[in-house]
């Protein structure tokens, strides 16, 4: 049964692509204001897990509840149509590895597009809010620029502001800094850290270990499609329970020790 006090409840989700089992029986819950960092080696199913939450990938088994409401399957027990799914997706913001901004729209239009077109909110209100969000991510001066004219770090900050403009209950980040030049990672992490502090509910797939250690309320360690370890970042980073987590962390030991970024 769904725990309705949780923003997100993932229960026993499995997913396979052909012969490969990408996720097997993954369960976790996210409370309001939590920042969950999903860690794990590449190919461990982190991105697929994220994409199952808003049904960009359809899970083979298991349930997903957003604020106690089942995602993807309606009351009659059948798979939701595009329209029904869309309604749920407007409550879940998503930030993409390669930004995925809409190239034909300006920065401000990118922020306003979904709130106006999908959520049908009044344009003037959306615009005011979008301008405030651009100020928040430090890009007020770029509001009329097209995405192609921005740096990677700027694009990703627009990506985050675009997701926030939907007033989502939950924000998903799919390796938001992996496509960035190292010197641009910091400006994006600053914005994410602020959101964590403000109590935004977030699930973040990342390889930024120092960020996970400082900003996460809880980490989820995935390996070969299974949740191998979960707990507070302090405990996970200083004293991991499993051998796999230890091996994984060893590779990032330098990053964490130097407190890079």
């Amino acid at each position, binding site marked *: 049964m769904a725990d309705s006090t949780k923003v997100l409840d993932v229960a026993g989700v499995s997913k396979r692509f052909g012969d490969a089992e990408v996720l097997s029986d993954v369960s976790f819950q996210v409370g309001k204001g939590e920042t969950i960092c999903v860690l794990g080696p590449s190919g461990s199913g982190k991105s697929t897990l994220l994409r199952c939450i808003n049904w*960009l990938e359809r899970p083979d088994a298991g349930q997903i509840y957003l604020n106690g409401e089942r995602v993807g399957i309606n009351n009659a027990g059948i798979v939701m149509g*595009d329209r029904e*799914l869309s309604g749920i*997706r407007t409550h879940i913001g998503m930030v993409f590895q390669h*930004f*995925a901004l809409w190239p034909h729209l300006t920065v401000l239009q990118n922020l306003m597009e979904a709130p106006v077109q*999908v959520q049908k909110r009044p344009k003037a209100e959306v615009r005011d809010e979008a301008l405030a969000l651009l100020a928040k991510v430090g890009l007020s001066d770029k509001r009329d620029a097209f995405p*192609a004219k921005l740096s990677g770090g700027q694009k990703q900050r627009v990506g985050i502001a675009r997701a926030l403009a939907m007033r989502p209950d939950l924000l998903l980040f799919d390796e938001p800094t992996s496509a960035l030049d190292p010197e641009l990672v910091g400006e994006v992490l600053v914005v994410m850290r602020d959101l964590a502090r403000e109590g935004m509910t977030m699930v973040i797939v990342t390889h930024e270990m120092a960020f996970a250690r400082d900003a996460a309320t809880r980490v989820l360690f995935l390996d070969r499609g299974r949740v191998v370890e979960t707990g507070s970042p302090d405990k996970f980073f200083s004293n991991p329970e499993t051998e796999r987590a230890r091996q994984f962390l060893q590779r990032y030991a330098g990053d964490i020790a130097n407190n890079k970024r």
Partner: protein
Amino acid sequence: MIHDFGIVWGERALLLSGLANTAILSTLSAIAALLLGFMVTPVLMSKQPVVYGAARLFVDGMRCVPFLLFAYIVYYGFPSFGIRLDNWTSGLVALTVYNAAYMAEILRGAWAVQPREPIEAGIAFGFSEIKLFRRIILPPLLLSAGPVIGNQMIQIIKDSAFLTIIALPELTHAASSIQSRYYVPFAAFITAVFLYWGLCLIIEAGVSSIGRIADARR
């Protein structure tokens, strides 16, 4: 020679109505071909071998048939199957179907190189069905395919000249009837050439403004 052009000037009403018909014919069939192309494109990208094969056959078949022959078949050949179309309808159908094959191929090419992520972002942000297509997929697609679609529209205008053979009163037909009535071939045809050129310039102006819009976004 000046005298010849004087005769053509005297028949300007006929030429202008030919020009108008060419413009109407080309515009209607360009729009229809583009719409039909949009319907064929997804079929062309289908993973079902039979469905894909049928669309491929249509596209490749059309592109290998000379337009003149195709127009003959529609106007003179279809009645053998009980399909009798007047010359306007025949002309429109021939131009539309023939160019839809090109449009489908143009759109398929442009579609295939569109990055997948912005479309996925559209889905993740709650866009679906027609709205997803209209607001998220279509605009970048048209911006990148715009110049090639423009070229194809110029091709349509030129192809429409063939329809004089089914007595469609378009620009070439008008020029041709002026020359046969007064025997002023050079003056009549060169005037028509300049009028065609004028039409193409309008298309090219449109293409370059799409180009400017696209460049700003690149």
